[in-house]
C-alpha cells in the first residue's frame, strides 16, 4: 500500500509505569499481586457526572448506557485511597522527578505550575470514576522531524480480573503518558518511534519492566477517514501491523461508503418487532429472547458481511455498538440462513420488514429495553457507514485487528482534582536534573571500553539486569563473565523453570566474586544459581552443597589417578592426550574448581608423567 498517497497520519501515546517506592497519590507500594492473595472486596456503582463546565462527556455517557456493578479486590498492600474512601495524598515527588527527567531527555519545556486533573473513566477501572492525571511538560524532540506534544503524569488504572471485577494492586502506580504529534506516515515509522521512546524511557533506569508495564495507544487517520485511537497495544512488534490493519479498515469503510452512495442506500424506518416470526426457531438465542427487533438497512446487502479487517466485518462494528446495551451480539441477513435460522425464516423476515434483495436486515434479541437500545445503536452505526469512518476509541484484538470501545472523548471529560494542590516547578531545579546516558550510547561504550562483543554489549545495555551488571563490574567482576552470567546463564535457567527472580542481586554478585577468586569454577555457576533459587540459602552454603571447592592437591590426586588408569592411551598419544584427559578430569571435578586451574595442573602432571615414563 502506498501510505503516503493514502494520506496516513499517525501518532502514539506511550504509557510507561514508573518504578517508584510509593504510588502516585498514596503511600502504598507499587507492587503487583496475585489475585488469590486478596484480603477483601467491595462493590460499587458509577454514575456519569458533569464537568465543571456543565457538560457530560460523550464517551462517559456511552459507558453509562448500562448501570453496572463493579467489584474490587483489596490487598494488604492497598489502602483507603485506592478504595476512593480517602482523599489523595499530595502528588508523589519521586514520580514527578522521574517524569521531569524523562521530559528533559526529550528536550521538553516544563509547565510552570502542574495541575492535577480528573479524567472521567467510568468503565470501572478506577474506583473513583476518574483517573488522576497532570500535564507536566510540553514540546519534545524526536528523530526524523517528529515531535512530542506532551508528557503527563498519571495514575495507573485497576487491572480487570474478569467481567466487571477489578484488582486494586495496580491502581495508582505512577505512569508517564507521552503523546506524540501525528508526525508518522508509514506503519514502520510508528514502530520505530515507539521503539525509540521505549529505549529513552528505559535509559532512566526508573521505569518498570516486563509485560504490561508499557502500553501503546495508536492514533491513526487517512485522508477522508477519521482519527481513531487504538488502545492497549502491549506488544511492540504488533505496532506496525495494527497501523496497517487500521489503514485497511478505513480504506474499506470508505469504499463501502462509495458503494452505499451509489446504491442510494439509507437507514430509514423504525425497528420492527419480529419476535413472533421466531416462535418456533431452532436458533436457541432467538428462541429464548423476550423480544426480537429487526432493523432494515436499505441498499446494505452484501456490505454488512464484507470483511474490512482480518476477522472483522461492518457487521462486527454494528455488533460492538449494540453490545453497549448489554446484548451479546447481532444477526444480519448477509450471514443468514445460519446459526439455526432457516431460509424460510429469512424469507418471512424480508416480507415482514418489506426488505428486498438489495437490503440487509439486522436482528437484535434481548429484553425489551435492551433490544430497543441495541436496535438504536445498530441504526446509529449504519448511519455512520453512509458518512464514512467514525471517530472512535478502539481496543486491540489478538493479532492486531480492533473492536469499537467508545466515541473519542472530548475535553469535557477533564475537570480539576481539587483535593490535590498544584505543584510549581522550579526552573533551577529542572536545570539541575541530570539526565542519564541513552542505552544506545551505553551499548557503544560497553563495546568500546569493555571489549564486549557489540551484540552482547547491546543486550547488556537494554537488559533489565543492566544495574546489576554495572554493579558487578564495580565490584571487580570481569565484563564478559558478568555479561554471560546475567544474560546467558540466568535466562537459560529461567527457561528451564528455575525461579531466578528469587535470587537476590547480592548473592549473584558474591557468586561471581567467588568465581573470580577461584573459590568456585565457572562451570559451577548454573548449579549454584539453581541451588540459590531453590533453597534461598547464601552463596557460600550453596557452593559448599553443590560444588564444594577442591584443593589443588585433591585435583592433583584426581589427575594422577586418571593418568594411571589410562597409561597405555597416554603413552601412545603423548601430550595430545591433554584434550581427552581434560574431559575426564573436568567430569570428576564437576565445576568445583576453575577450568583454567585444572588445565594448568593437568598440563604439568601430564608432562611429568611422560617424562617419568
Amino acid at each position, binding site marked *: 500500500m502506498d501510505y503516503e498517497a493514502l494520506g496516513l497520519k499517525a501518532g502514539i501515546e506511550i504509557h510507561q509505569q514508573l518504578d517508584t517506592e510509593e504510588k502516585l497519590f498514596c503511600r502504598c507500594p507499587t507492587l503487583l499481586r496475585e489475585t488469590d492473595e486478596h484480603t477483601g472486596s467491595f*462493590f460499587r456503582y*458509577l454514575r456519569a457526572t458533569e464537568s465543571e463546565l456543565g457538560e457530560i462527556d460523550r464517551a462517559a455517557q456511552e459507558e453509562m448506557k448500562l448501570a453496572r456493578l463493579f467489584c474490587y479486590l483489596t490487598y494488604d498492600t492497598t489502602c483507603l485511597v485506592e478504595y476512593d474512601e*480517602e482523599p489523595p495524598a499530595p502528588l508523589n515527588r519521586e514520580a514527578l522527578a522521574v517524569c521531569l527527567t524523562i521530559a528533559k531527555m526529550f528536550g521538553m519545556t516544563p509547565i510552570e505550575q502542574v495541575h492535577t486533573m480528573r479524567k472521567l473513566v467510568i468503565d470501572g477501572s478506577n474506583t473513583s470514576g476518574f483517573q488522576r492525571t497532570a500535564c507536566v511538560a510540553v514540546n519534545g524532540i524526536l528523530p526524523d522531524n517528529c515531535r512530542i506534544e506532551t508528557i503527563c503524569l498519571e495514575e495507573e488504572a485497576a487491572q480487570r480480573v474478569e467481567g466487571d471485577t477489578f484488582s486494586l494492586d495496580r491502581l495508582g502506580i505512577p505512569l508517564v503518558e507521552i503523546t506524540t504529534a501525528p508526525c508518522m506516515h508509514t506503519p514502520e515509522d510508528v514502530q520505530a518511534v515507539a521503539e525509540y521512546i521505549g529505549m529513552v524511557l528505559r535509559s532512566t533506569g526508573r521505569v518498570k519492566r516486563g509485560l504490561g508495564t508499557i502500553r501503546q495507544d495508536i492514533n491513526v487517520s487517512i485522508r477522508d477517514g477519521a482519527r481513531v485511537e487504538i488502545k492497549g497495544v502491549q506488544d511492540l512488534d504488533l505496532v506496525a501491523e495494527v497501523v496497517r490493519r487500521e489503514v485497511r479498515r478505513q480504506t474499506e469503510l470508505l469504499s463501502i461508503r462509495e458503494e452505499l452512495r451509489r446504491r442510494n442506500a439509507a437507514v430509514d424506518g423504525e425497528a420492527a418487532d419480529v419476535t413472533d416470526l421466531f416462535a418456533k426457531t431452532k436458533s436457541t438465542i432467538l428462541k429464548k429472547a423476550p423480544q426480537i427487533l429487526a432493523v432494515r438497512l436499505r441498499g446494505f446487502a452484501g456490505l454488512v458481511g464484507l470483511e474490512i479487517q482480518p476477522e472483522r466485518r461492518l457487521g462486527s462494528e454494528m455488533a460492538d455498538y449494540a453490545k453497549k446495551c448489554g446484548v451479546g451480539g447481532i444477526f444480519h441477513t448477509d450471514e443468514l440462513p445460519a446459526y439455526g435460522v432457516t431460509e424460510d425464516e429469512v424469507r418471512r423476515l424480508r416480507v415482514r420488514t418489506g426488505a428486498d434483495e438489495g437490503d440487509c436486515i439486522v436482528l437484535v434479541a434481548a429484553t425489551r429495553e435492551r433490544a430497543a437500545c441495541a436496535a438504536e445503536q445498530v441504526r446509529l452505526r449504519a448511519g455512520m457507514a453512509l458518512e464514512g469512518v467514525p471517530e472512535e476509541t478502539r481496543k486491540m484484538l489478538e493479532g492486531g485487528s480492533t473492536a469499537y470501545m467508545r466515541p473519542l472523548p472530548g475535553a469535557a471529560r477533564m475537570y480539576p482534582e*481539587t483535593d490535590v494542590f498544584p505543584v510549581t516547578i522550579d526552573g533551577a531545579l529542572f536545570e539541575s536534573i541530570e539526565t542519564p546516558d541513552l542505552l544506545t550510547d551505553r551499548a557503544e561504550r560497553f563495546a568500546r571500553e569493555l571489549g564486549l562483543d557489540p551484540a552482547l554489549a547491546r543486550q547488556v545495555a537494554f537488559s533489565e539486569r543492566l544495574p546489576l551488571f554495572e554493579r558487578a563490574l564495580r565490584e571487580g567482576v570481569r565484563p564478559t563473565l558478568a555479561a554471560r552470567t546475567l544474560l546467558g546463564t540466568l535466562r537459560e535457567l529461567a527457561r528451564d523453570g528455575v525461579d531466578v527472580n528469587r535470587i537476590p542481586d547480592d548473592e549473584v554478585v558474591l557468586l561471581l566474586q567467588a568465581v573470580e577468586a577461584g573459590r568456585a569454577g565457572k562451570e559451577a555457576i548454573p548449579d549454584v544459581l539453581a541451588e540459590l533459587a531453590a533453597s534461598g540459602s547464601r552463596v557460600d552454603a550453596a557452593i559448599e552443597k553443590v560444588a564444594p571447592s577442591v584443593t589443588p592437591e585433591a585435583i592433583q590426586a584426581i589427575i594422577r589417578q586418571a593418568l594411571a588408569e589410562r597409561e597405555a592411551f597416554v603413552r601412545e598419544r603423548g601430550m595430545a592426550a591433554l584434550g581427552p584427559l581434560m574431559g575426564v578430569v573436568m567430569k570428576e571435578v564437576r565445576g568445583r574448581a576453575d577450568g583454567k586451574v585444572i588445565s594448568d595442573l593437568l598440563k604439568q602432571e601430564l608432562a611429568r608423567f611422560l617424562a617419568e615414563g
Partner: protein
Amino acid sequence: MAVIKLDTGYNIGVSRSAVEWCERPSPPAAALPVVRQDADLPELAILSTGGTIASRVDYRTGAVTSQFSASDILRAIPGLAGIARYRTRQIAGILSENMTPALWQDLARSIYEEIRKGVSGIIVTHGTDTMAYSAAAVSFMVRTPVPIVFVGAQRSADRPSSDNAMNALCSASAAAGDLGEVAVVMHATMSDDRCAIHRATRVRKMHTSRRDAFRSIGMDPIGSVEYPSLNVSLADEAVRRGAEEAALLDRINDRCGLLSFAPGMPPSVLDAFSGYSGLVLAGTGLGHVRAEWIPALSDLIEDGTTVVMTSQCLYGRVCDRVYDTGRDLLDIGVIEGEDMLPEVALVKLMWVLGHEDDPERIRYLIQTDIRGEIRRRST
C-alpha cells in the same frame, strides 16, 4: 498564577505576566431538564442546608463548595422521582462546620411548617461534619409523626463514585416509609449494598472520609435500606409513623460549651466558660477531670453554670461514684450524663436550658431519656 485550560482538557498554571487576556467567553448555559413529579406518590419535603451531597467545584477557588439548590439535587438524581414527589426548600447553603444553633432553630421551624402542611416525610441534606449535632437538635426541638431523615455524602457529588445518589435514594425511601422519628441515613458499608438508619441522638461520625463513617454508638442502627431495591426494614425499637403528634419546642440557650479534658490541662481553661449557662465535660474513663479542677468547677457551678459529665470513651456510662475524684465532682454538683454522647449532651443541655431554669428540673431532664439519647440499660 493564571490557570489555562488546554484543548485537551488539561489545566496548566502559567505566570500572570506571561498571559494576555483576549476575551472571556461566558460559559454555555447548561440545558436543564424539567423535573417531573408523579402526583400519585407521597409528598416529601427536601430541606437543603448544603454539604457534600450537593457540592461542586468552585472555579474561583478551585475548592469543592456547596452551591446546589434542593431542586438541583432532584435533577442530579433522577431516580428520586420514582419514590415520591418533592417540595424543596433551602434553609442554608453552607458547609456544615459553619452550622449554628440559630440555624438549627430555623431548620426545626421549617420542618415543623412542612409537617403541618402535611408532607409524608422530611429529608434534610446536610454536610456530614456536624450532621449528628443538627439531627440531635431537631430531635429535641420537633415532635414528629413522620420520618425526618438527615442525609449527606462523604465523597463529593462531583465524582462518579460519590455516595450521594445512593444515600439520597435510601433516605427518600426511608422518609416515605414507616419510621416516625429523626434519623440519619448513610452508607452502612464500604460497598453500595445498603444504608443504615441511625437514631439521631445515638449516631456519631466515626471516620474522617469513609462512606460508612456514621455509626450508632451503644446500640444497633434502628433499621436499614437495601440498595438498589430500596426496601426499608425497621428494628422493633424504631418509633413508627404516627406515634406522636407534631409539636415545636424550639427554644435554645446557646451559652453552652463542650470541653474535652486532657492530662495536665490547667484549671484556668475553665475561665473561658465563666458566665456560661451550661458546660458539658468530656471526661476521662468513667467521667473524670483532674482533682485540681474541683475548686474552679465548684465556682463555676456556684455562679449558675450547669455542668454535665460525659466520657471521652463514647461507649459506656458515666459513673462518678467509684473513685474519689468522681465523688468530689458529684459533691460540688456536677451532673452525671449517663451514657449520652458528649455532643448530644451539649445539644440537649442547650435545649433543656432553653426551656427550664429550675436547677432540680434541669438535673431531672438531663438525666431522663427524652428522645432516645439515654439507654436505661447498657447492653
